[in-house]
């Protein structure tokens, strides 16, 4: 029972972003981070899995092929949190979460949608924002609201596209520890993160994408190495352990530029 990505190719028009990318199986209970330089295809892979971008190859969840599923059936299994949420709508946070629950047309039978939406806001610590309009939210608050929309259906697979990009330090910790708790409930979590120290601290495994393919995959300590950082990101870096044993990534400089300076 897992998410499997096999020989997936996708792109925009003629530009191919991912070519025949395969990932080892992603298991329930685990948080996997997708990392890599800009334009490596991280968001594109998330969108392909979420059914938002066409692809060739095979993506299966718990043995079921995702490609032939309609949008509503897919939304019951997958929660997707995009990079940004528009601010122009005259809707409050609670309304957006209820909409996330009701839009596919499937009605919750057990409890009223508004009760369930409110419980999710409470769980994320943003219940006080329930009746705040989207246009009154800060970037970080909007990101938390977006996470609430992604998890309210209790999806088996949660896809997060740079969920911490607008969050302050405390909220990064709150969001990622909540993501860990969600995974611990037996869900599969795949998230894009740019901050490798954050990724090392909060994920079970890291997939490094580079030039449309998988460069490395494994536990953080095996994947995040000076050699990988030099090859994939073009930086000279040290990877050390802090007094508590967590990985620290210290970037010293850009390789090509320092080489040019010599």
């Amino acid at each position, binding site marked *: 029972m897992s998410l499997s990505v096999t020989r997936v190719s996708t792109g925009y028009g003629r530009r191919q972003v991912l070519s025949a990318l395969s990932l080892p199986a992603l298991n329930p209970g685990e948080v996997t981070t997708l990392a890599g330089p800009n334009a490596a295809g991280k968001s594109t892979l998330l969108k392909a899995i979420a059914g938002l971008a066409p692809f060739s190859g095979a993506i299966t969840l718990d043995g079921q092929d995702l490609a032939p599923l309609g949008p509503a059936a897919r939304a019951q299994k997958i929660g997707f949190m*995009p990079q940004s949420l528009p601010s122009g709508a005259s809707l409050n946070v609670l*309304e957006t979460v209820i909409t996330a629950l009701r839009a596919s047309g499937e009605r919750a039978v057990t409890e009223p949608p508004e009760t369930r939406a409110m419980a999710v806001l409470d769980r994320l610590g943003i219940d006080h924002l329930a009746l705040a309009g989207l246009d009154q939210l800060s970037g970080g608050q909007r990101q938390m609201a977006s996470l609430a929309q992604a998890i309210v259906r209790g999806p088996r697979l949660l896809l997060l596209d740079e969920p911490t990009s607008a969050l302050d330090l405390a909220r990064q910790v709150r969001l990622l520890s909540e993501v860990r708790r969600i995974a611990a409930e037996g869900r599969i979590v795949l998230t894009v993160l740019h901050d490798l120290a954050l990724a090392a601290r909060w994920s079970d495994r890291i997939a490094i994408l580079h030039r449309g393919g998988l460069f490395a995959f494994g536990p953080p300590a095996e994947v995040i190495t000076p050699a990988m950082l030099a090859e994939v990101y073009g930086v000279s870096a040290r990877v050390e352990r802090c007094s508590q044993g967590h990985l620290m990534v210290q970037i010293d400089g850009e390789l090509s530029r320092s080489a040019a300076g010599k």
Partner: protein
Amino acid sequence: MSGSALLDRYHRQNRRRTALVATMAVLALIAVVIDLTTGPSGLPLSETLRALAGGEVPRGTSVIVWQVRLPVAVMALLVGAALALAGAEMQTVLENPLAEPFTLGVSAAAALGAGVAIVLGVTVPFLPPAWGITANAFLFSLGALTLLQLMGRLRGGGPEVLILFGIALNFTAAAFLSLLQFIASAEDLQQLVIWTMGSLQAVTWGSVAILAVVITLTVPFALMASWKLTALRLGEEQARGFGVDVTALRRRALLRVSLLAATAVSMVGVIGFIGLAGPHIARMLVGEDHRFLLPASIFTGALLMSAASTLSKLLIAGTLLPIGLVTSLIGLPVFFWLILRGRQAR
């Protein structure tokens, strides 16, 4: 505030919105009654109401109320409702607050169709002559929207592409209309210009019935799509993530918009402002939960159009102004005022 207290506030807010929608409906009905009691024949209010109630009135009074005033008043109500609903759905599915049948060429195409009938005498064969202009206007505006959808589909159907095609259609139809006006005889030109200003004078119970049927057939489907439309306000990607088939939603909404706008415009001519302002005023009143926004738009449009119908009779004593002229002249300053007021309130 605790979760249950917040939920209470949410439910209270929704009850307030329901009350606002009901208020708009009542105001629209009152506007129709006022519309019915005004007119050049100077019937006293009591006699108009007695004729409506089926009481004893002179035959002339009965004819004026039932055959002249009532179809016009009901048509104003229906046209306002149809255009505002079309505008609300269009603004959401094209993700643009300026989208409405008027800005995307539906009205211009209808006017071109009317022009072809009036100036060139080309219309649908075997129709009673009285229906020729209306039939042409309907076919041209429906054709414009179909063309818009087809071209949109060729290029992936994104909202930007649809809007650009709509604007191009608008200018194309306007250019051909100018050409027709240039070659038209003085008499035809006058008829065409008056048609493009929008008028309720040619309204019959037959045309009222047709528009009523179209509204009855489209409104339930629009209301059933409320949650999906609300989801689209959070962006296409988010809506698709929620399980909405955005392509199908957009196609079906534009089909409803086509039927509503083409029918309304072909019956009464070019009516600006209602399709734009109706949904905007409704949005200021009830927000963008489409369960409330769509009905609020319908009743706001109906109210605005009824008020415009009354004003068209009262603004210049003894003269009946074209209603499209009134909606634009009176409506736009009101609209600007509302926008500025809305900004300050934030």
